[in-house]
């Protein structure tokens, strides 16, 4: 069972829809008991870190995510879901899940560049990760964010993107992988990433 975690952080219809395009039914849930049954977890979300963490704790989904990580099942974080997996966020100065060591930082304001970073941008992949296989040179992905994930170890940075600074846009470790961009809104290359995730056994992220 592929579980999509619903913690009232934005609209999940596009994630559900893109799985459907791959012929897969995702189970949207707020229930930790359902997450415990999952063979795969997608952890999306948009919005603010403070409110997101409060809701995750209230629903018991923080523990459910930690147990999923410990069980070794493949986990995919998207956007806010790639940020709150770190230990802390500068947004609302929030203590986060700590599935990976590191912090979520504010995108610095640069002359002539807009924040939020909204639109299509490239990702320079730094490792041969199975979730990011089969993507052509020059492919772009859809971003909407004002903060970015900064894992504590460089080996956890799987891809980087330029918007004034070069920031980690794909991160991961062991059975966890996460993208700051939205694969579910990134056309067929985004769909390729989701398809790769659905067949990934979670073993070779290192």
């Amino acid at each position, binding site marked *: 069972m592929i579980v999509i975690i619903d913690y009232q952080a934005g609209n999940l219809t596009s994630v559900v829809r893109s799985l459907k395009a791959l012929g897969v039914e995702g189970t949207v849930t707020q229930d930790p008991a359902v997450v415990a049954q999952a063979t795969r977890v997608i952890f999306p979300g948009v919005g603010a870190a403070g409110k997101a963490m409060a809701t995750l704790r209230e629903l018991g989904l923080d523990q459910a995510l930690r147990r999923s990580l410990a069980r070794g099942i493949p986990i995919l974080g998207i956007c806010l879901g790639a940020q709150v997996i770190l230990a802390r966020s500068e947004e609302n100065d929030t203590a986060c899940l700590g599935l990976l060591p590191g912090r979520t930082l504010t995108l610095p304001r640069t002359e002539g560049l807009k924040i939020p970073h*909204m*639109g299509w941008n490239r990702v320079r992949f730094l490792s041969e990760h199975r979730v990011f296989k089969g993507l052509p040179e020059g492919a772009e992905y859809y971003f909407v964010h004002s903060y970015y994930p900064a894992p504590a170890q460089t080996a956890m940075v799987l891809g980087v993107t330029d918007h004034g600074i070069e920031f980690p846009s794909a991160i991961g470790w062991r059975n966890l992988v996460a993208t700051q961009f939205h694969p579910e809104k990134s056309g067929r290359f985004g769909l390729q990433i989701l398809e790769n995730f659905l067949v990934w056994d979670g073993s070779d992220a290192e």
Partner: protein
Amino acid sequence: MLSKRIIPCLDVRDGRTTKGIKFRNNVDIGDPVAMARLYYEAGADELVFYDITASSDRRNIMIDVVRRVAAEILIPFSVGGGIRNLNDMRDVLLAGAEKVSVNSAAILDPALITAGAQAFGSQCIVLGMDVKGVPPSLTTPSGYEMVIHGGRTPMGIDALWWAQEAVRLGAGEICLNSIDADGTQAGYELTLTRMISEAVPIPVIASGGAGAPEHLHQVLAQGRADAALIASMVHFGAYTIKGIKDYLAQRGIPVRLVW
């Protein structure tokens, strides 16, 4: 580097795509769902739908269009026109749109922007601005005035002030339409676009006046726009999105070329 977005705009009336000049003389140009699919495959970076359905009891037709479009394309799209309250926003977002665009309703009730941003996130809330050039005055010092009802009703509100106010209220993006340029195909309003884009920290989509690829180059370079809305120039087959993007790329504008 962030690409500049090329965004086809579809005006939808009673479930059909239509196109008019300055909101008049509308002709039927096709099924919005089929057109969305074609533009998605042709390299559109995003789509905008404006519901210009005359009567509010036919709103459900638009929601059905949104739902069917969402099932066809895997890029973001926004829906505007007739969005009056949080329920209208929720309806289009749950049907599968990424963003909602508010225009007249936000001028009449600015708190709607804040309420929408709090309920759905700033990234969902696009401020649509219909703007007309006027002689600078005490109420419109920038020389640009907000108008509603397709340009027929001047509001006595300065466009530059309103753009900055909307950012403060929580808008995540601005779709800036020049009523003077709209439908002319003679080029975007560059002075207006640059003025607004430089004054706000959020992305600005330029709208109104696109007739040739050089117009997009002008508005994305000199006009400092983050994205450009196009309609007639692609709806009637004079240009393709690929052709426009190749033209821009050759002139150093970052655009998405692989899709």
